[in-house]
């Protein structure tokens, strides 16, 4: 967010603003109605549902909450969910850096196509991704016919979950690293080179540290996306409790058997995980803004 705020007193608008208004109040219309619409929208769609979730979870005693949210089955589901999301996000950081690097720094045929197609996981319905990934990697699938004989099960396995999460998370990393990489000035690298640094040293000591914040942010975004994913995973996983059941799936299972309290308790744990991730992103962004000045 590069806010090009009008400098007061210089531009016509700045002068007007000082003339017409006090310090914080703007003479522009629409504050009242705008605020009413915004707050009602977020209240109905977001705050009330969140309050319902918390209210439901507090209707359980701590012991009941723990029994529901920390059962053996739930723990297995968290381990798989957080583990798969973390592995996929790490792979995405590596692949995303590679993509951003190649797209920003090199000129080659098909570059723009590559740049555009990276966004596909954002636009493609996750059910379609799951459908395709589930049949490409089975024994007689396009990829599976080569991989399954090697012992690589890319469908109906834990690896399948990681694979589809890598697909979904890739654009998050590419799109956060790309702007930073393209804003890097070439003269720093030239300076490093003139001081005798090798390409590799320049990369690890000069370039990597400056894109590191974006890599963290990309990791967190891909990770948060992976934690919540459901649509594609039900296609590619066998969904067996204790083995290949992710947390959102367990929530759905509890919900379908009308164990709403249990479902809520697990949902709260999952939500806590992803909100922590979101807060981490915000903290990183705030820190980056401070350093950018």
């Amino acid at each position, binding site marked *: *967010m590069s*806010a*090009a705020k*009008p400098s007061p007193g210089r531009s*016509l*608008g700045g002068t007007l*603003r000082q003339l*017409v208004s006090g310090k*914080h*109040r*703007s003479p*522009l*219309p*629409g504050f009242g109605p*705008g605020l009413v*619409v*915004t707050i009602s929208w*977020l209240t109905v769609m*977001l705050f009330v*549902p*969140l309050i319902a*979730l918390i209210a*439901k979870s507090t209707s359980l005693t701590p012991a009941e909450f723990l029994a529901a949210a920390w059962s053996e089955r739930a723990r297995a589901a968290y381990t798989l969910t957080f583990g798969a999301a973390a592995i996929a996000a790490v792979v995405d950081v590596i692949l995303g850096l*590679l*993509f951003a690097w*190649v797209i*920003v720094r090199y000129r*080659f045929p098909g570059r723009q196509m*590559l740049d555009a*197609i*990276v966004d*596909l996981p*954002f636009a493609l*319905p996750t*059910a*379609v991704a799951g*459908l*395709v990934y*589930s*049949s*490409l990697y089975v024994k007689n699938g*396009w990829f599976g016919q080569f991989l399954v004989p090697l012992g690589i099960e890319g469908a109906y396995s834990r690896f399948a979950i990681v694979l589809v999460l*890598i*697909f979904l998370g890739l*654009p*998050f990393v590419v799109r956060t690293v*790309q702007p930073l990489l393209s804003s890097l000035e070439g003269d720093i690298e030239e300076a490093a080179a003139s001081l005798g640094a090798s*390409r590799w040293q320049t990369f690890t000591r000069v370039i990597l540290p400056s894109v590191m914040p974006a890599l963290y942010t990309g990791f967190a*975004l891909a990770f948060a996306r992976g*934690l*919540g994913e*459901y*649509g594609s995973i039900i*296609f590619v996983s066998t969904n067996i409790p204790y083995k290949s059941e992710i*947390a*959102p*799936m367990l929530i*759905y299972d509890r919900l379908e058997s009308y164990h709403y309290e249990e479902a809520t308790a697990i949902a709260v744990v999952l*939500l806590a995980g992803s909100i922590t*991730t979101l807060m981490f992103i915000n903290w990183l962004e705030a820190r980056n803004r401070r350093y950018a000045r």
Partner: protein
Amino acid sequence: MHGNSVRTQKTAGKMVANEPLWFRVLLISLCYLIALVLIIVPLIYVFVQAFSEGFSGWWNNLFNDAETRHSVFLTLIVVPLAVLVNTVCGVAAAWTLTKFKFPGRTLLMTALDLPFAVSPVVAGLMFVLLYNLRTGYFAPLLNSMGFKIIFAWPGLVMATMFVTIPFVARELIPLMQALGDDEELAAVSLGASPWQIFWRVTLPNIKWGLLFGVIQCNARAIGEFGAVYVVSGRIERETYTMALRVEKLFQDYNNPGSYAVASVLTLMALSTLVLKIILERMVAASMEQSSSE
């Protein structure tokens, strides 16, 4: 942020790629290989499968199946409704949050991001907790009115709305911050009415960004699976959207039918990408124009 903000592309060829040629070729080939495996082959696979029985088979699977036809119809109702509400409210929120400073502004800004951190299944669960007709917090009210939200289309709209809350507002806020409010202030001082200011001054400035946000909101709404899955109760010819229909056909071992629906969803995703490229250029151009003024 979150990969959906406007990217102003640097196309100037000032970047000197001084890695050795073999190294550049290696990285570029690696990128192509990954893009092929993760994105391009899956894309091709959708259409190969969808048209495995020829064009007439594809057509049959789509339009001579009453349930599939109904899912298309339902998607055409649910998605525009959700997108419309989120667009109107998103514009109101962006206006309120960028043109005025008031206590709680940062809080609302953060709240707009929250749906990114909530698993779609948890989102669906929240609405079930609120509106299910047996134990829901609003069950007495709904029962007395004879109105059904869960396991009916209003629930589908609400679940879709929840997951797409951030898209329009998140796209507009950085854009409107960058544009500033000089022009609007000038219009106020010249005696323009609130509607005139919005339609004649603000909207022309933000139109490409707005359209960009709407398109992304639309793509996400079409593809939404988890939240909709939870609230739909999956009733034939009543609560199956296209994304849910893909899964249902897949479970019924009707692969050609499943891929036929998936191919339509994929075409929508591809057109989203194309529109996105066009709009990104428009936004970049309009931002350049406003900054050079």
